[in-house]
């Protein structure tokens, strides 16, 4: 085993980041169908995360991209994005967000992680936790499943 599966990898990162938010769920849809939703960051992220109003991602298949987020709090800014099958890690000056997925039988295990950057700990971390608490993660998983089912 030279690389853990993406969900295990995100679990390790969440531990390292001491992320206030980490959750996993099983979605009863095939991996390709679920990941198609996650990978469509520009089209889907504003539907999945309520405070992201717009997420502009340059076109192309590159695994490393520089995206631009516009959110309702006005915390707009550039994001470094790393995207590959089963793995999405996005980081701005203030926040980090990760999503990972792996096939789980006929379904998909999906994980999501969110953390504030340490330089901005404190108020931002609390805001982030309130924005993406347990209720929000359940809503996130439900919305991924709903939008994947439409594909």
């Amino acid at each position, binding site marked *: *085993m030279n*690389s853990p599966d993406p969900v295990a990898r995100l679990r*390790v*990162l969440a*531990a*390292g*980041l001491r992320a206030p938010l980490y959750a996993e769920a099983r979605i009863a849809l095939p991996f390709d169908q679920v990941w198609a939703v996650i990978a469509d960051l520009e089209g889907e992220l504003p539907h999945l995360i309520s405070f992201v109003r717009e997420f502009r991602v340059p076109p192309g298949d590159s695994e490393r991209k520089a995206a631009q987020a516009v959110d309702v709090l006005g915390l707009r800014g550039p994001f470094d994005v*790393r995207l590959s099958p089963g793995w999405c890690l996005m980081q701005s000056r203030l926040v*980090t967000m990760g999503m990972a997925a792996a096939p789980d039988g006929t379904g998909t295990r999906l994980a999501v992680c969110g953390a504030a950057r340490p*330089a901005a700990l404190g108020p931002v971390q609390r805001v982030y936790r309130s924005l993406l608490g347990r209720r929000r993660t359940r809503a996130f998983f439900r919305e991924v499943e709903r939008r994947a089912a439409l594909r």
Partner: protein
Amino acid sequence: MDPASRNPPGPQQPAPDALHRRARRRSRYGVAAMDDDVRPWDAAAPLVRAAQSGDALAMDDLLKLVTPYVTRLCAPIAPDDTADAVQESLLAVFRGLRGLRDPQAFYGWVRAVTVREAVRVARRSASETPADPEEIVRLRDLLPGIGGELSVEVRDLLARLPLRHRTVLVLRELEGMDERATAELIGVPEGTVKSRLSRARSSFRKAWTR
């Protein structure tokens, strides 16, 4: 032949080829100008510093960099639960990363954490199964005369050794550590390491010639 000299991926030289290739690819953390002489622990140091400051991308790079090394340590110590041992080790490493004062000491520290976690996971397992043949092949010098050929029997012999013997064999013969460093790492006196090593080698040879 001195085990340390025939085993380059020791404490100071983990998986040099793979790490060198990755080191040369990096530019984000100020190591773009590295040439072929770059040492893996130098490549890790800027990533460690960035990861300690909460840079998730650096942390991910560091995770990819160190996973093969952690896997190589875990496979012979916990052959029946390698995936669990690797995951537990990586979790422990990254949970504790911010407490690491000297980034240059990263690999030595990773090794200590990994061996501790791998032994803990292996102790949970009731069964003993053969280790990865690729790991066992590096123990061939314990058996003069068998050359490069390794059989299922050799794998089985190693896997049947008690965990405490397997651990010292891995650290001494695969990692090229001396008795003192091995003793410090597994938390027993140096004399205990020597006697365990002697018994492990003896058991291995006797079982082989039977």
